[in-house]
């Protein structure tokens, strides 16, 4: 089975959980021998892992015909793409896009991030997708998140192949309810046009059904999983101070993640005991507000903001922690608690997180219940048996959550969609 996937991020250059999920899912699916995945991203860097799928860079796909020779193409794109593919794609340009700004190869430039002109970039992505869809041979189209829904719809219209979309988040999660009408329109259109909708949690599925008015029969929950840790990460020696406990929050400091609840809970805990430190790693638009709040509560000596963490730094921080906390107000899934549990860190998550649906060996509280949260932090730091239980059992539990199984579930949905589509 051949799948054409549209995505926005792919490791190692990732900005959020979408890239991690895309990688894990494709890798898990690739374990099925007859699975052949082509993954489109706006801007490959050339160091992506291509051992189990093909990657097509949208910024390397021509939309305007340029007469360039093999040497030149090879020189420009050789690191990330076979020149022959460039020529094949060039044969499938379907309209005159000279009015767009294109480079010397007739390609549109992409930032591959979330720039201010995101809508324009999404539109360009969809234009390029038309070329890719005309050139590639595939059985089914799979679009990851709203940024690529227009591309998926375009590909479906061009080829008549079924479209499956993967909802990693909705705008209701990102905005605590104040949705952006443009984003909503793109999301709703994608869902209406899709032949099947996969959601990363039951929570998201309900949002899709209730807020986007989708038929429950075409919406399925496909929970995410987590990739095993590499040996390099396993070998990181945790730096721990035996006299102090560390409670960590790791993620974007934005409204969606509920950072203020963490600060409030921390101040309650610190009223009682002083041997606990709190870390809020990451950055975001609420960071300054949080620093101010911490100062207001008078706990700045015990509350730290180390900033954005990259690559292995994340695991160094996790391994040095005694408690990981994710008080998200609305989290479609949330892979980071699973990563913390892989590092044998006891975890507290909000009940409003999608991953709460598949995790059992962690503490769940309501995001607004700062007293329960404070209580949970205090008891993990105080009662050794609870700490040990969550550490060991949590690790055992999370090691059973594998992308391979998710791959089989997705495959089952593909088969079902194809059967009905004929």
């Amino acid at each position, binding site marked *: 089975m051949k799948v054409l996937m549209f995505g926005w991020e792919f490791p190692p250059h990732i900005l959020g959980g979408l890239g991690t999920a895309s990688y894990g899912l494709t890798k898990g699916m690739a374990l099925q021998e007859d699975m052949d995945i082509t993954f489109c991203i706006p801007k490959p860097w050339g160091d992506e892992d291509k051992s189990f799928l093909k990657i097509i860079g949208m910024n390397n796909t021509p939309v305007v015909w340029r007469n360039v020779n093999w040497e030149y193409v090879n020189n420009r794109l050789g690191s990330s793409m076979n020149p022959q593919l460039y020529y094949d794609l060039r044969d499938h340009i379907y309209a005159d896009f000279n009015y767009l700004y294109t480079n010397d190869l007739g390609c549109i430039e992409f930032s591959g991030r979330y720039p201010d002109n995101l809508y324009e970039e999404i539109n360009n992505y969809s234009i390029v997708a038309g070329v890719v869809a005309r050139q590639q041979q595939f059985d089914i189209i799979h679009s990851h998140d709203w940024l690529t829904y227009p591309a998926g719809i375009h590909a479906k219209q061009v080829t008549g192949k079924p479209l499956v979309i993967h909802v990693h988040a909705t705008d209701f999660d990102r905005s605590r309810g104040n949705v952006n009408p443009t984003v909503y329109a793109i999301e709703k259109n994608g869902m209406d046009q899709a032949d099947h909708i996969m959601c990363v949690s039951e929570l998201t599925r309900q949002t899709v059904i209730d807020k986007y008015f989708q038929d429950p029969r075409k919406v399925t929950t496909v929970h995410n999983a987590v990739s095993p840790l590499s040996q390099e990460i396993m070998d990181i020696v945790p730096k721990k101070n035996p006299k102090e406990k560390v409670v960590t929050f790791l993620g974007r400091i934005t409204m969606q993640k509920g950072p203020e609840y963490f600060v409030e809970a921390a101040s309650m805990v610190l009223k009682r005991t002083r041997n606990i430190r709190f870390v809020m790693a990451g950055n975001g638009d609420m960071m300054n507000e949080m620093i101010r709040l911490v100062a207001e509560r008078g706990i700045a000596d015990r509350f730290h903001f180390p900033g954005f963490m990259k690559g292995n730094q994340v695991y160094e921080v996790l391994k040095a922690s005694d408690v990981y906390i994710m008080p998200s107000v609305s989290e479609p899934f949330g892979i980071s608690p699973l990563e913390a549990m892989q590092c044998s860190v006891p975890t507290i998550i909000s009940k409003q997180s999608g991953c709460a649906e598949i995790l059992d060996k962690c503490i769940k509280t309501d995001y607004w219940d700062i007293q329960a949260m404070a209580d949970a932090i205090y*008891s993990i730091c105080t009662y050794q048996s*609870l700490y040990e239980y969550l550490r060991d059992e949590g690790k055992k539990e999370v090691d059973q959550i594998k992308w391979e199984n998710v791959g089989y579930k997705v495959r089952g949905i593909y088969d079902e969609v194809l059967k009905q589509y004929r």
Partner: protein
Amino acid sequence: MRTICLYFEIHQIIHLKRYRFFDIGKDHYYYDDYANEASINEVAERSYIPALSALIDMTKNSGGTFKVALSISGVALEQLEIHAPDVIDLLHQLNDTDCCEFLAEPYSHGLSSLVNEECFKEEVMRQSNKIKQLFGKAPKVFRNSSLIYSDGIGATVASMGFKGMLTEGAKYILGWKSPHYMYHCSQAPNLKLLLRDFKLSDDIGLRFSNSEWSEYPLFADTYINWIDSLPQDEQVINIFMELSALGIFQPLSSNILEFLKALPACAKAKGITFSTPTEIVTKSKSVSSIDVPDPISWVNEERDVTPWLGNVLQREAFNKLYSVAERVYLCDDRRIKQDWDYLQASNNFRFMTTKHTGIALSRGIYDSAYDAFTNYMNILGDFINRVNSLYPEDIDNEELNSLLTTIRNQGEELADLHRELEHLQAKTAKAKPAVSAAQEAAVPGKTTPAKSVSTEKVPGKKAVAMKKTSEKKVDK
């Protein structure tokens, strides 16, 4: 003659309230009064009152042939007295029929039998006395919380003078043996054991209203036929369950009480009688001893103590609780003793289980095992602080015990001396008018004898009392 021994447990815990760690040291009241009142009233209304009324009818209608046994935990009795006195009235009515036996059990419905013998004996005796006070008969047969039993527990129970004990007919203990005979404890041959037939008990208590069960709907004649078709020499059929099975687990709409009411007539037709545990224990003979090295219970498929002590959380909470057992035993603070009863209830540990049994478990106010653990440990933290603040921590328990004994004995001694003093003062007061009268009559200046008698007596008594003190010290 084949006989059925029907026994019901009455137990309701005192619900703990949501207790955060910042309450430690500030709030010493741990209970959710609203939940306690609401739950006991619900159980009383939906189950205890209709079920007990049915049992009373059955004893009256059967002309004394229907018999039943009950046990009530101390904490449940306290709650019933406060919130549902109607149930106590019904228990009295049932007691008046003389067809009902009350059994002894630990006051707190706790697990003290597994860890602290002294504490266990104390609460069993307290429960027995309470039952005797209420119903006029001292229990002769014992049943432990959740029918927990092991050889060691059996020996302790026998040493307290009980004739029999109820426990589970666990498959892995019995092996090829049948629960339909009476056995005895391997360490104390005088203690007879009645083993629960879990199949027949669960048919009523667990499956009765389950419409997917192959035997649904179950009728009394079918049920009695099952018992009748057992091999001839199997004489004792022990059917034990919670009283709340009638009405709560099996709703009244399933006609479970009608089923129950039909049992005596059906049994009579087949020549099967009903007996109380004491009758069986005194009349029948034990066929063999039973070895139970590790504790068994009537819960879960494993029939062991893992529902309460299966994971590290439960064991930590349990060990922390009983780490102060001796101190609580020594102290005489009423509120601490009361909290001790409520905190011991095994349900508190059950809430922390992480076992997957397939049967839904109600965790009360708790979301999860961790939530239950956190809440309980916070309360326990406060409780232990209170216990430790009673006496200095650096004195070990043995030393503390002897000091307390000395203080108590000295107190008694002082009281004795005071009494003595008053007695003598009264005597001298009486003697004085007599003496003065004599003085008037006889030669003045001879008053000394009366005085000297009194002064001689006092030191003599004191010496005896002192001797007593030292003897008591040695005893303890």
